[in-house]
C-alpha cells in the first residue's frame, strides 16, 4: 500500500513536471519565470550536494563553488568542441543535432571530472578536520578559480561562451524547453540518489563519522573510504549543477565561482538545517526567490541576506528544519514519502 502511494507521489510529480514543460513550450510561462525556475533547480542541486559534506558528514566545506566551476568548464568546453564551430578545432566534431541525445552525458562527464577534483579535499581530510579542513577547502576553491583565470584556451578571466549555440542546435531539431527539462531531471536524480544512499547502512557510515568518528572507525567503518565517497559524491553533484548553470546562462567566467558563490551554498544549507534533505530543497527555493525579489535593491541585497542568516542563527541555530525531514513535521506526509 505504502509502495503504491509512493508511486502515486512520483506520478503526481511527473504530471506537474510535464505540465510545466508543456506550458513552457507553448509560451504560457514567460522566459523570466522559466529562468527563475531553472535557477531554483540548479540551486537545489548545489545546496543538497553541499549538505552531503556539511550536513551528513559534519565537516565544514566552504569551497564548494570550485567543484561547480570544474563541472561547468568541463561540460562547456566539451559541448562547444563537439557540437559547434569553434576557433580551436574549426568545425564541430559531431553533427550539432546529436546534442539532443548526448547533452545529458556531457553534463554527467562534467560531474565525474568534478568528483575527481573532490579528491583534492578528500585526501587532506584523512588527517585534518574542522577549521583546518575548512581552510583547505577555501584554498582549493582559490586554486581552481586561479587556474581557470590563467588558462588561455578557456578564455582566462574573460570567460568562455558558446554554450547557447548548443542549446539552439537542440531546439533546431525539435522546439522544446530542453534546459528546463534537463534541470528538472537532474534535480529529481540528485534527490533520488542522495535519499537512496543515506537510507542504506552503507551511507549511514557517513552519518556515523559526524556523530563520533572514533567510534565509527573502531566499529568497523572504514572512515577514510567513506570520506572519499562523501567528497566525491558531493563535488560530483556540484559539477552537475555547474554544467547546467553554464548551459542555462550560456556563458561562464571564473569569478562567478568565487568564494561568494560557495557562501551562497553555505547560506542555503545552514538556513535549511544541517542534515535535512527536504530542508535544503525548501531553502534553495526560498533563497532563489528571495534573491529575485531583492534584485531591485542591487547591492543592498548582500546586506539583507546575511542579516537574515544572522537572525536565523540567533533565534534558531539549528536552521529552519534542524535535522528533521518534512514528514517528521507533517506526519500525514508519511503515507507518501518516508525518509528515515
Amino acid at each position, binding site marked *: 500500500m505504502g509502495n503504491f502511494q509512493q508511486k502515486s507521489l512520483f506520478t503526481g510529480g511527473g504530471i506537474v513536471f510535464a505540465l510545466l514543460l508543456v506550458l513552457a513550450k507553448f509560451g504560457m510561462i514567460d522566459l523570466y519565470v522559466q529562468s527563475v525556475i531553472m535557477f531554483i533547480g540548479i540551486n537545489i542541486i548545489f545546496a543538497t550536494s553541499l549538505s552531503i559534506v556539511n550536513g551528513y558528514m559534519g565537516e565544514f566545506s566552504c569551497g564548494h563553488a570550485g567543484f561547480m566551476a570544474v563541472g561547468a568548464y568541463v561540460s562547456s568546453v566539451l559541448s562547444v568542441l563537439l557540437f559547434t564551430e569553434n576557433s580551436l578545432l574549426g568545425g564541430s566534431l559531431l553533427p550539432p543535432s546529436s546534442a539532443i541525445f548526448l547533452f545529458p552525458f556531457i553534463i554527467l562527464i562534467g560531474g565525474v571530472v568534478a568528483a575527481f577534483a573532490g579528491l583534492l579535499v578528500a585526501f587532506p581530510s584523512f588527517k585534518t578536520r574542522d577549521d583546518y579542513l575548512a581552510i583547505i577547502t577555501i584554498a582549493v576553491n582559490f586554486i581552481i578559480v586561479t587556474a581557470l583565470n590563467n588558462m588561455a584556451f578557456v578564455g582566462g578571466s574573460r570567460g568562455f561562451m558558446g554554450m547557447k549555440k548548443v542549446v539552439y542546435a537542440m531546439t533546431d531539431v525539435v522546439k522544446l524547453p530542453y534546459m528546463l527539462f534537463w534541470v528538472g531531471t537532474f534535480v529529481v536524480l540528485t534527490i533520488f540518489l542522495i535519499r537512496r*544512499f543515506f537510507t*542504506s*547502512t*552503507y551511507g549511514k557510515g557517513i*552519518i556515523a563519522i559526524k556523530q563520533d568518528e572514533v*567510534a565509527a*572507525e*573502531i566499529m568497523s567503518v572504514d572512515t577514510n573510504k567513506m570520506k572519499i565517497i562523501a567528497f566525491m559524491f558531493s563535488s560530483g553533484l556540484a559539477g552537475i549543477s555547474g554544467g547546467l548553470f553554464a548551459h542555462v546562462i550560456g556563458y561562464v567566467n571564473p569569478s562567478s565561482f568565487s568564494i561568494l558563490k560557495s557562501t551562497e551554498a553555505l547560506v542555503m544549507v545552514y538556513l535549511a538545517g544541517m542534515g535535512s534533505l527536504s530542508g535544503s530543497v525548501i531553502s534553495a527555493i526560498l533563497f532563489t526567490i528571495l534573491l529575485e525579489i531583492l534584485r531591485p535593491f542591487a547591492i543592498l541585497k548582500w546586506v539583507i541576506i546575511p542579516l537574515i542568516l544572522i537572525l536565523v542563527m540567533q533565534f534558531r541555530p539549528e536552521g529552519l528544519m534542524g535535522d528533521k525531514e518534512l514528514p517528521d513535521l507533517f506526519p500525514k506526509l508519511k503515507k507518501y514519502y518516508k525518509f528515515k
Partner: protein
Amino acid sequence: MSLVKITDLTQRFGGLTAVSDLQVDLEEGGLYGLIGPNGAGKTTIFNMVSGFYTPTEGTINFDGNVINGKKPHSVTALGIGRTFQNIRLWHDMTVLDNIRLSQHYHLGYSVFEPFLRTKNYFKNEKRIEDKSMELLGVFNLQDIAHEYPKNLPYGIQRRVEIARALAAEPKLLLLDEPAAGLSSADVVDLIDHIRWIHDNFDITIWMIEHQMEVIMNLCQYIKVIDFGKTIAEGTPDEIQKNPQVIKAYLGDEGDIYA
C-alpha cells in the same frame, strides 16, 4: 590455544613512556582483567590492541595475524570488539542503526548497489536487520530498537554499547571500565551480564576496571600495571595478597610512618 600474544610492547609519546615492555598471553575463552592506578597506561594498551595507536616497539599477534599498524576498522574485521570508558554510541541514530552500523565491514554489497537497489542489496540489508534484531532480542533490548540512545538511562546505554561491540562478531571483547558511572545495583547486574555473555557467546573477554568487586568476581587471571610496567599478575586471590599491588594502590606503609 593462545588467542592474543603481545611481546615487548612499548608506546612512547614524545618523552613519556606510557607502556613499556609489556608481555601478554591470552588463552582463547578466558576472562582476563587489567588493573592499575589512574594513568598507569591501561587504556593505552587497549588503544594499541584495537589499532587506534601504532605501538612504538613490539608486536601484537592476534589469532595468527600481526595487527600492530593495522587500521582500527580492519582490526575490528579480524575479530576484536571494544567498548569505551565514556560511552561512545552514536546518539542521534536509533539503537537499531547503532547495531547495524557495526557490521559495516561485511555489508555484502558494493557502493553502487544502494543507488541501484539491486536484489543483492535488499537481501543483505534484510540479513543485517534480522541479525541486529536477533541480537537485540538476545539482550532483551528489542523494545527500544527505535529509541535514540541519548534518551536512555545510563545502564541501558552500557548494554547497548556492549551489544554493538558484539554485533561485529568479535573473538575478543575489550571492555574499558564497563562499571564506570553505574549505581551499585547496576554493577551487580553488570557482573551477571558479563558472565552471561562470556558463557553464551563463546568469546574471550579482557577488561579494565577500577571496581574490585567486578574484577575479583569475574576474572580468572589479572594483570596489574603501574607507570606502564607490569608489577604483578595472577589469580584474584594472589593479586589481593600481593604487597606490590597494595603498595601501588595504597602507597608505601613506610612512607606513612617515616
